[in-house]
């Protein structure tokens, strides 16, 4: 029986995350953590002409936070910065398609909140 939370797609991203790693000559480098669990995220990215042309992440995290980072970085890679600014938390959760408890919502939104707090994605 397939687990309602740890569906194949989540486990796939957990095992083989997209954009996992580090960009050497990055335009922005950001580290953040989830104080409730101690999980860490490290993001590096490249920007050209108002576009996020590349983004990578590393860090320690649960399957939900890692899958979310994989899905989200895949979504925003190549997007205009002005469009990335407009993304809402609900869209991130919708993309994952998971029913999450408040505690796990923090895991799913860690990557999103880290990006949103970083220049030039800050409002």
């Amino acid at each position: 029986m397939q687990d309602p939370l740890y569906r194949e797609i989540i486990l796939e991203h957990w095992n083989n995350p997209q954009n996992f790693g580090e960009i050497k000559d990055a335009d922005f480098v950001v580290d953040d953590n989830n104080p409730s669990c101690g999980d860490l995220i490290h993001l590096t990215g490249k920007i050209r002409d108002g576009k996020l042309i590349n983004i990578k992440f590393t860090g320690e995290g649960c399957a939900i936070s890692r899958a979310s980072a994989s899905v989200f970085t895949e979504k925003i890679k190549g997007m205009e910065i002005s469009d990335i600014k407009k993304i809402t938390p609900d869209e991130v959760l919708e993309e994952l398609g998971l029913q999450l408890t408040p505690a796990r919502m923090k895991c799913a939104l860690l990557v999103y909140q880290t990006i949103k707090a970083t220049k030039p994605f800050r409002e």
Partner: protein
Amino acid sequence: MKNLKKDFPIFKTYPELVYLDNSATSQKSQSVIEAVDTFYKNYNANIHRGIYDLSQTATDMFENVRKKVAHFINADSEKEIVFTASTTESINLVATGWAKKFLKKGDVVVLSEMEHHSNIIPWQRLRDEIGITLFFLPLTDDYRLDYQKFSGDFSKVKLLALTHVSNVLGTINPIEEIVAYFRENGSGVKVLLDIAQSIPHLSIDVKKFTCDFAAFSSHKMLGPSGVGVLYAKKEILEQMDPLLVGSHMIGRVTKEKVTYADIPERFESGTRNIEGVIGLGTAIDYLQQTGMKEIEKYEKEVTEYALEKFASVGKIKLFGPKISHNRIGVFSFAVGTVHAHDTAEILNRFHIAVRSGHHCAQVLMECLGISGTTRASIYLYNTKEDIDALIKGIEEVKDTFKQ
């Protein structure tokens, strides 16, 4: 020991619940719940300085618990018992009310790498304020305290602030040996023990420890939350400053000045959690009626059973001693490469309540080179069947994550 779950209404509400988060907080017995309920129905009044009968009765009940606590930990007098809000507040009271007043720049406070944040941060703050030095005693490979690894001037060590039992590893630290070691090496050291994780499970004797301070919480030992205790030797308490000033803790107040009340009232400003203290008294009654020695013996049996089971499951790493000697039933573990939160999430599907994360011990996590663990912790009502359920749940975790 007979199965005690029937004394705890939560297990009637949720018959399937496998509660293994006792290091975080314990469940409450029917007797404790009734004591709080009865207090509100029959005795509720503010304590101290009430002339009417109801207030006097409430005061007597409250003060009676102070005596009970003193007796429970073998203190000399109930005057050595201060009711605080938590273990954290108790330790802050020592840091601010005693250490800040009597320690000076260059003095050393010895902690350990297995301390809870509540016994680290107050000392870091004091270090930043007055320039004391902190030394963290390291761990051995089998998760014991390597207390002979202290390097430095023993004569500068003014305080040993140690946990009796690790909330992550389950290790029971040999407090008497450690204290003797420091005193033999010429340090006139004072000793503060964090006994929050030990007092629910083990007989505590502050005289045997020869400690100067001991801090613990009601909610981990069957009592209500919001009540902590600081034990401190009378002569030390008399020299200490209060953490909070204001109501109740005064001798005489004029526009110009104030004199403080005697101990322990001096440290109990504001209306305390009266019903919580009453509940703590009933919790102590329950523990004493069950017998601390009996509880210790029973939990050791379940701990041994759990350690055997853990050893038999593949792909599990246990962070803590592998034998039941000097160890309580706290089991921190990792299942393969699965993150602690994911393990806890799967276990929750089977109504198994465990904690996951850093357990307010990030220094320890860093020393172990991990970001967190999943932790199962037992108490007197847990059974071998609970351990079986946990092991079965862990197999499900392995299955889901193909470990």
